[in-house]
């Protein structure tokens, strides 16, 4: 495996209603790129944490009950305290019609599920320009 470029230490919020997926993403980011992570199990929880914590990025699931990824995205961008946090969508919605709506979101990037846990950190870093 190609050695990853040097990646700066970051703090990432993972918002997903699927516990197993949250666990896998957490492990991948912490173990393979050494970033700090925090998790939210719903959109509302994610908004709360984003407003409370200092974050370098948010990895955001779309399909969630109550407040889904789209709504959270709008809420984050509407809130001055969170609007500068880069958002990367992590979604299982991969059909073209799903992407048309995603394209309207002002997000830093989209990573589709399933993802490779060994490289997801690298992908995020590249999307956000965190590589040297």
């Amino acid at each position: 495996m190609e050695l990853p470029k040097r990646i700066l230490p970051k703090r990432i919020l993972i918002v997903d209603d699927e516990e197993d997926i949250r666990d896998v993403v957490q492990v991948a980011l912490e173990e393979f790129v050494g970033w700090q992570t925090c998790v939210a199990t719903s959109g509302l929880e994610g908004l709360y944490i984003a407003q409370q914590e200092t974050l370098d990025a948010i990895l955001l699931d779309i399909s969630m009950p109550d407040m889904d990824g789209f709504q959270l995205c709008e809420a984050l961008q509407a809130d001055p305290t969170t609007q500068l946090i880069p958002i990367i969508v992590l979604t299982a919605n991969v059909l073209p019609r799903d992407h048309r709506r995603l394209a309207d979101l002002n997000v830093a990037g989209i990573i589709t599920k399933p993802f490779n846990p060994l490289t997801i950190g690298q992908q995020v870093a590249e999307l956000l320009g965190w590589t040297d």
Partner: protein
Amino acid sequence: MGIPFYLQDWSSWLSPVVLADASCCYPLLLAGLLGLIVLVVVETSLLASIVTSWSRRPAVALPKPEQDYLSDPTCTQTQEALKQSESFNRAILNALPDLILRLRADGTYLDIKPTTAFPTYFPNLRVGENVRNVLPPPIAQQRLTMIATALQTGAMQVYEYPLTVQGQPLWQEARIMPLNAEEVLVVVRDLTERKRMEEALRQSEARLELAQQVAQVGYWQFDVEQGTRLWSELTFRHLGLDPTQPEPSWDELLQIVHLNDRATLQASAERAITNGIPYALDIRVVHPDGSIHYLEARAEPLLNAQGQVTQLIGTLLDITDRKGTEAALQEREAMLRAIGDNLPKGYIYQIVYEPGKGRYYTYLSAGIERLLGLKPEAVLANPQLMRQVGIAEDLVYADQVVQESLQNLTPIELQMRNRTAEGQIQWSSIRSVPRRLPDGRIVWDGVEVDITELKQIEAALRTSEEQFRRAFDDAPIGVSLVLPTGQFIKMNRRYCELIGYSEAELLELTFADVTHPDDQAADLEGFRQLLAGEIQAFHMEKRYITKQGDIVPVLLNTAMVRDEQGQPLYSIGHVQDIRERRQIERMKDEFISVVSHELRTPLTSIRGALGILESGVFNTRSDKARHMVQIALNNSDRLVRLVNDILTLERLQSGKVALVMESCSVAELMKQAIESVQALADEAGIGLVWQPLVAQVWAAPDLVVQTLTNLLGNAIKFSPSGGSVWLSAEIRSGDWRTIGSPRGTGTGHSNLLNDSAPLSVSTATSWVCFAVQDQGRGIPDHKLELIFEPFQQVDVSDSRKKGGTGLGLAICRNIVQQHGGRIWVESTLGSGSTFFLTLPYQPESNNGTA
């Protein structure tokens, strides 16, 4: 002065009565031209003797002849002879119709010999009187002049003159002969009758000529003995010859006659001359210009006393026109007969109505036998035969039409049915035009033709048109006809419904008027290409804007209908409302999207967990590694369930699951379902409460158990530990649509159980209604219907935690629906939900019979 003896004699001959009646006698004297000529001949010699005898006499004093003769004793014999001669002369003179006068040169009458045959018109006429006092002045003057001329020249003067006496026009002739130097003899003859005859003859000849001219009769004479011919002008003309030329010879004449008619004419002419047999022939002659003329040639021989033919008198009449007319008439009759006899299934006829005698046929062409199986002669003899083949009700109508025609001379035009010999109904079209004859009879010339086939075609056409009209009107898609101008000319009901306009409103519009502005350009371009023939058909998904302002997406298929010359008549457009299709497509897309998402979600966990394990990062941390293995395992199971459920649902929806139906015990079904979830309930600390119903349902038992199990499983999963789940069943009657009234909403479970005793109901509309009741958190109202759709769990993550696939209720609904039952839920948030499902109830009596 004494009266000459013969004048005395004349006086005695002429009694006053005779004089008065003389006018009646003189026509006898003139019997014709020949008679006149004879008279003139006799008269001339007689006059000569008279003149001779008078000339010997003295001019003034006439001696007494008697004395002269008697006093001459030496001449007794001579005297006797003379006496006889004079007597003879007197008799002749008396027989003459003429007025004989002796006048002096100055016009004085010296002698007057009146005549029985000559009227005395002038009362002053007597001896010693002068012509000036007797005759009208112009006549008198002329007389004196002529006397003078006669005396001067010594020659007889003859002249004719008209005069009017007592209103009568007269013609007289005067002959004036000098007797001596002083006297003249005047013989006056009445020419009135002769002139009248001449005039009559002239007029008669003129009339004959005129008649010949009018009748175009040429007249000819042939003198057999002399071999001469005398032809009238028309005879020349009929033969195409110049009337100013002399008559041709017989041989020349024969050359003019048509070759085929020469022998006949020759033979007829010879028979006429030799045997005195008249002839009348129609012959053809060839005119110099080559045209052929038909002549009717007649000849009549004139015989002499010995019975020999002396002359042939004949006529020629040009009958070319008549021949032409005759030929045309024959031609027309033949044509009529041919038409009548050859009418394909039809005939022509003539009917006569005769007052007092009724109607009868006078002509029927042969076709009647082919058409009606009746012989023409039979119908001519008995017109009633026609009524035997006619259909009674049609005959009634036909009689009305005929009666009207009889009264008003209106043409007959009707269609009626006959029954053929084979018993089939045959349709006839009958047309005839009446005309009234001078004798009061009315004649209809008509034709009857078979129109059975036409009627059948008509009927087929009507059916076809009706079918088309229904197909058009009742078509489930909109159909519209549009002119090349874009204007609507016809549309069906569906089209009107689709666009929201009435037909009358649409007829005022063009298709562009109801087309979405964004689609107009493309639609018009397609229409243009159609019109131009660049494309045969045009398809387009377009949007209409309804009268109400709604946008309706449709699929338009249109083609141009053209006339024989290829000119566009109108376009026909089929318009399919694709809102439903769009909806289905959206749902399909949605489903695929959701399925994709639902499949990817467990795969993401599996892929992530396995990737982490494979990296070896947890090689030294076994608890972490075990957690990853557990994630992979759980999600694998979930994936399997999901795939199974998707397949089950798809098979149910597409009807690929054949329901093996049988009579099932409701209690047994309930028992199996309870047993299959007992372990789950025990594990969750949930109490299962159920009350078996003794009844039979017609159902596929496995699928019903699966459904009940699913509902019970959900109830257990969403009930708090320590709670209860109830399963009950009851028999309900009536339409299941009304069974589903929200009786259980918010009323708790006891209500249902208390009412669960079997009901006495009619079997036709009876159902077994199962109820699964829980004490869960309840379902919001807006989700009550939605939860039966795929992947529409109330709470996705919660459902997944409980191992749900999001398809369970969708599968349940499909199974129940395929049993002809219904599934629904009643719920109170915070108190719990009750799922109901109905299955057809099978009464005891029917057990095992189905």
